[in-house]
C-alpha cells in the first residue's frame, strides 16, 4: 500500500525531495523575487545619475540615519532566528515574544523609511522630479512594501497562533515567514550598498 502523498502542510516526510512542499514553494517564490529586485535595481543603476533639475543623491541622502535604520532591520533577522528556533522547540511564549519583537523592528525600519521619504520630499525631491528620484522611490518603495507585508504576516501569525488556528505545523509556518524575512533583509543589504554607499 502506497501512502506516499501528503497534505499542503504536513511537512517533508513523504516528498520526493525530502523538502516540504511549502518550503520548496517558498524558495521558488524567493528565486522569482530575485529577478523582480534585479529589474528594479538595474533600472535604478541606469538612472541614478540622471537628476535633471532635481537634487543629486549626495545632496539628500542622510547616510548616518539610514545606517541606523539598516542596523535595526538587520537585527530583526537575528530576532527572527530566535523566533524560528523557539517555534521549533515548541516554546510558544518565546515564539510570540521574538515574533513580536521582529515585527516591531521591521515596523521601525518602515517608519524610518517614511520619515526619510518625507524629508526628501521636503528638500524638493518628489516622485516625478527626475529619473533618479522616480527610480529611487520605486526601488526603495518596493522594498518597503515587502517589509510591510512581512510585518503584517508576523503580527497576523502571532494573533492566529494565540487562537491556535494555524492549519498544519506552527513551527513550519513561522519558519516560512522567516525565510521571507531574511530574503527581504538580504535585498536591503544590496540596495543599501548600491544606493547609499557607492557614490554615483
Amino acid at each position, binding site marked *: 500500500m502506497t501512502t506516499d*502523498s501528503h497534505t499542503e502542510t504536513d511537512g517533508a516526510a513523504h516528498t520526493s525531495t525530502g523538502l516540504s512542499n511549502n518550503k520548496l514553494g517558498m524558495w*521558488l517564490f524567493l528565486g522569482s523575487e530575485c529577478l523582480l529586485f534585479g529589474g528594479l535595481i538595474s533600472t535604478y543603476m541606469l538612472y541614478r545619475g540622471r537628476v535633471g533639475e532635481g537634487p543629486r543623491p549626495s545632496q539628500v541622502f542622510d547616510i548616518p540615519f539610514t545606517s541606523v535604520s539598516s542596523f535595526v532591520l538587520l537585527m530583526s533577522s537575528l530576532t527572527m532566528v530566535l523566533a524560528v528556533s523557539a517555534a521549533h522547540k515548541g516554546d510558544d511564549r518565546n515564539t510570540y515574544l521574538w515574533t513580536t519583537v521582529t515585527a516591531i523592528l521591521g515596523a521601525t525600519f518602515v517608519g524610518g523609511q517614511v520619515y526619510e521619504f518625507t524629508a526628501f520630499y521636503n528638500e524638493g525631491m518628489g516622485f516625478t522630479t527626475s529619473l533618479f528620484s522616480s*527610480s529611487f522611490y520605486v526601488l526603495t518603495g518596493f522594498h518597503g512594501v515587502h517589509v510591510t507585508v512581512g510585518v503584517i504576516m508576523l503580527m497576523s501569525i502571532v494573533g492566529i497562533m494565540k487562537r491556535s488556528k494555524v492549519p498544519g505545523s506552527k513551527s513550519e509556518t513561522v519558519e516560512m515567514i522567516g525565510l521571507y524575512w531574511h530574503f527581504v533583509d538580504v535585498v536591503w543589504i544590496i540596495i543599501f550598498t548600491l544606493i547609499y554607499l557607492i557614490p554615483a
Partner: protein
Amino acid sequence: MAIIERSITSTEVFSVATPSSSLGALKRPVATTGWKSWLFTVDHKKLGIMYSAAALFFFIVGGLEAVLIRLQLAAPNGKILNADLYNQMFTMHATTMVFLFVMPMAAGLANYFIPLQIGARDVAFPRINAFSFWAFLFGGLFLNLSWFLGGAADGGWFMYAPNSGPVFSPSHGIDFWVLGLQITGIASLAGAVNLITTVLNMRAPGMKLMRMPIFTWMQLVVQFLLLFAVPVITVALFLLSFQRNFGATFFDVSAGADPLLWQHLFWIFGHPEVYILILPSFGVISEVLPVFSRKPLFGYPFVVFSGAAIGFVGWGVWAHHMFASGLGPVSVAVFSISTMAIAVPTGVKIVNWTMTLWGGKLEFTAAMKFAVGLIVLFTIGGLSGVTHSVAPSDTQQTDTYYIVAHFHYVLFGGAVFGLFSGFYYWWPKVFGKLLNEKLGTWNFWLMVIGMNMTFGPMHILGLQGQPRRMYQWTEARAGEGLFNFGFWNMFASIGSIVLSIGILLFLINIVITARNGKVAPLDPWDARSLEWMTSNPPKEHNFDSIPTISHLDEFFHRKYQEDASGQMVKVKTAEQVMKELEDNADAHIHMPSPSYWPIFLAAGLPVISFGVIYSIPIAIIGGVIVLFGCYGWSIEPSTAPDDDFDPPATTKDVVHVG
C-alpha cells in the same frame, strides 16, 4: 472535502454532512455536482478543463481579430478598419494569442496531465492552482473589457516607447493592457511555483527525474522559465504604469530616459516567453510520436537535455529582437552567435523526432498528423529564425512581414499544431470519447493548407519590403507584375479564411463528439505513459493505488515484455494492468477540499486594477478584498480536518493528497 470510500466495485463519492467553516462565517463549499462544484473546485482535472475551455474562447476571439486584420489588408486601401482600430486589432490579436490562448492552454494541459504523468493525486498546492486559474481568467476578461471602455491597447504587443506613453496613446487601452497582464502574470507565477513543486516533490515512488514523461519534463523547463521571466515583465509593467498613471518618466526620452530600457526588460522576458510558448508543444509531440510509431522516443536523454539547454540559452538571446536599435558591434556579435547556438538543441530535437519515426509502424491518426505537421512547419520557421541571427540581414527584415511570417510558422505551425495534436491524443482521456478522426483529418489538412497560404506569402511580402503594422497599402507601392503585393496579400487573406474553416471544423468536431462520439476504450492508442494507467476520464483521486515506477514508459512496460527472441510482446492488456492497481486500492483517500477563497482572492485583483485606472477608493476596496481573502485562506485548512466528515474519518487508513 471529498472523502472517497473505495471498495473495489464502487467509486462513490461520499458527501460531507458537517462542512467546516471558512473564517467562521461561511460554510465550506461541499457541492460535488453543478456549477458550484466547478466554481470552488481545487481538483487539478476540473481546473485543467476550465483553463483549456477559457483558452479556447480567447483563441476564437484572437482568431476573429486576425481575420479582420487579413480582410483589411486583402486589397489596397482597405476600409474595414480605420488606422486606430487597426492598431488595437493587431495589438490585441498578439496579446490574446500569446497570453490568453497558448500560455493558458499549455497551463491547462500541464494542470491536467502533470499529476497523472508523475503518479500524483493532485498538485502540491490545490488552492493556489484554483487561484491561478481565476486570476488568469479575470485578467484576460479585464484586458478585453478595454474594447468597451474607450478602446483597447494600441502600441503593439511589445509596447515600445514612445507609443506606450500617454501622448501617443491617450485612451485607457494600455492601462487595461498593463494591469491585465499584471494579473495574468500573478497567475503564471503562482502556477509556476505550484507546478515545479508538484513535479519535484510529488512523484510516485520510483519516478526518478529521468523516468518522467517528456511532456512533464518540458513543462518543468517552461515553469522555471516563467518563474524567472515573469518578474522581469512585472517590473517593466510597473514602471510603465507609474509613467502612465503617476507621472513618472521612465521611458520618456524628452525627460532624459533611455528608450532601450523598456526594450531590454521586455525582451529579457519576451525571449524566454517564446520558449514558454513552444516547449509544451514539443512535449506533447514527444508523447504522441512514439505512441503512433510503436517505438520508444529516440534518445530520450537528448530530448530532455536539449529542452533544458533551450531553457538556459533562451536567456542569452533577447537582444536579437533589437538588432536595429544600435546596440553596438560587440553586443550584436554576441547575440548573433548565441542565436545561432540556440538552433542546435532545437535541431537535436527535430533529429530525435525524425529518428523516432524512422522504421516505426506509423499510424497516421489526427494526433500523429498534427505532430508530423509540427516537425515540418516548425523546421521551416526555425530556418527563417536562423536567418535572423545574421544581423545584417535581420536589420533589413526588422519590422517587415518576413518577421511576421517567421513567428507564425514557429508559433502557429509549432505551438498551435502541438496543442492540436494534444487535443486529439488526450481527448479520450479527459472526456472518455474519441474525437471524430475523419473530421480531424479535414481539420488538419485545412489548417496546414490555410496556414501555408496565409503565412507563406508573408516571407515574400516581407522581403519585398511590406512593413508590419501598416493599416493600408496602396496600389502605387504594390510593385510590378502578376506576383506583386496585391496578389500575395489577397492570397494570404484567402488563406486565413481556409485556416478559419479548418479551426471551425475542430469546434464542430467537439460538438459532434460530445453529442454522439465513440466511447473510448480504456487504452485507445496503446499508449506508453502513466496518465493512461487510469480510467477515462480519470477518477477524482486519479489512481486507486499509487503505482511504483520501475521504467521510463511505465505503462508500456507493464503491458509488454521481452520474449526469448528479444521482441517486445504484449503480455497484459490495459484492463489487466488496471485491475492490479484496483486490487491494491487504498481504502480511504482524503482529497483536498473545495474552497471559496481562490476565486474570492482572485476577484480582488481586477477591482484593484479598475481603481488604479479610475479612482483610488475602488482600489482600496479591492485591496480589502485581497487582504480579507488572504486571512480566510490562511486560517482555512487546505484539507478539511477529519472530524469535519460524517462519519469522522479515521486518520489511520486515510491517504492524504495534495
